[in-house]
């Protein structure tokens, strides 16, 4: 799996006070033959958020644009992304007031 922090992919932040929240968000895209996201969103992928001890904290499906968002607490988290025939894990570090925005290739 590759991620690309320079190309934020999560849903719109309109109406959300980023300073008060610890946001982990992003977009899940299909990987092309070269392993790089080919731009096709994966809707209805399931994203699990696990805490630093690997305990389940939350889960949601991606929207039709492949996007997701969690309101977490500061710290280290693991994302588990599942779709038919695919599963990837990624560790992220989240900070209050600073957006963590991911592009996940599946």
């Amino acid at each position, binding site marked *: 799996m590759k991620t690309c922090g320079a190309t934020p992919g999560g849903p719109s932040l309109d109406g959300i006070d980023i300073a008060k929240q610890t946001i982990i968000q992003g977009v899940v895209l299909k990987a092309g033959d070269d392993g790089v996201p080919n731009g096709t969103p994966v809707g209805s992928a*399931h994203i699990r958020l696990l805490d630093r001890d690997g305990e*389940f904290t939350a889960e949601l*499906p991606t929207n039709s644009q492949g996007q997701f968002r969690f309101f977490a607490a500061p710290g280290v988290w693991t994302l*588990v992304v599942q*779709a038919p025939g695919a599963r990837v894990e990624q560790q992220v570090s989240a900070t209050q007031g600073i957006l963590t925005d991911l592009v996940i290739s599946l």
Partner: protein
Amino acid sequence: MSRETSLVSADWVTENINNPKVVIVEVDEDTTLYDQGHIENSITFHWRDDLQDGLIRDLISKEKFEALLSKSGIANDSTVILYGGNNNWFATYAFWYFKVYGHQDVRLLDGGRKRWELDARAFVTTVPTRTATRYVAKDRDNSIRAYRDEVIAAIGNLNIVDVRSPAEFSGELAAPAHLPQEQGQIKGHIPTAKNIPWSKAANEDGTFKTDTELKELYIGAGVDLAKDTIAYCRIGERSAFSWFVLHELLGVANVKNYDGSWTEYGSLVGVPVAVGA
């Protein structure tokens, strides 16, 4: 009250999609998922719009429940199959709800929407037309529903199982992490509650673990299954999931879902609260 009478597999649902005695209902907090695609012949209930009173904080009345089921074409002898997203949280809540109003044959699709999707099984957008019935509900069965006073009385006496995530239990988060952390109530948990997150009862694909694993989970965490048990979470839907595990899959008697849960308890004046793991 057993896995055989309360749970069905995706294969069972596939074989019974056109069974006239079977009514499949998707229950969710976000019914736009149903609009995008659902199991063939299924109808949908919205967790809030259809199942909450709206004026006061409570289940809908018996009369409204009868009207909802009647207009949905659910008869007293229907086999109701519930499923939904969020690892079946709202579907298990609806299961508990159907039992509160005494429906005889209600079952849950193991793994819900998620397992169905991961299997790449078919969804349709066609909404079925159902013939209305005259459904007659029973009076509420409060033997499976806990209210705040009995929860307070249970502190230090009965099993209290907090099924939220460790971060919510300890007071680090006020809500599941896919929701904004802006709830008004204080953070923490009911003293003497054991934190056994609902998720520990499920496999990663959303299906339930085996009975042996489930028994070990609760007993290993110090729950005395011979004692009465009250399960709670934030709004009563994840605890309905754990209620389902204990009461339906494991057949444990005297398990109640406290659907007031932390949004009620954490707002009460003067009740004891604990924080930390």
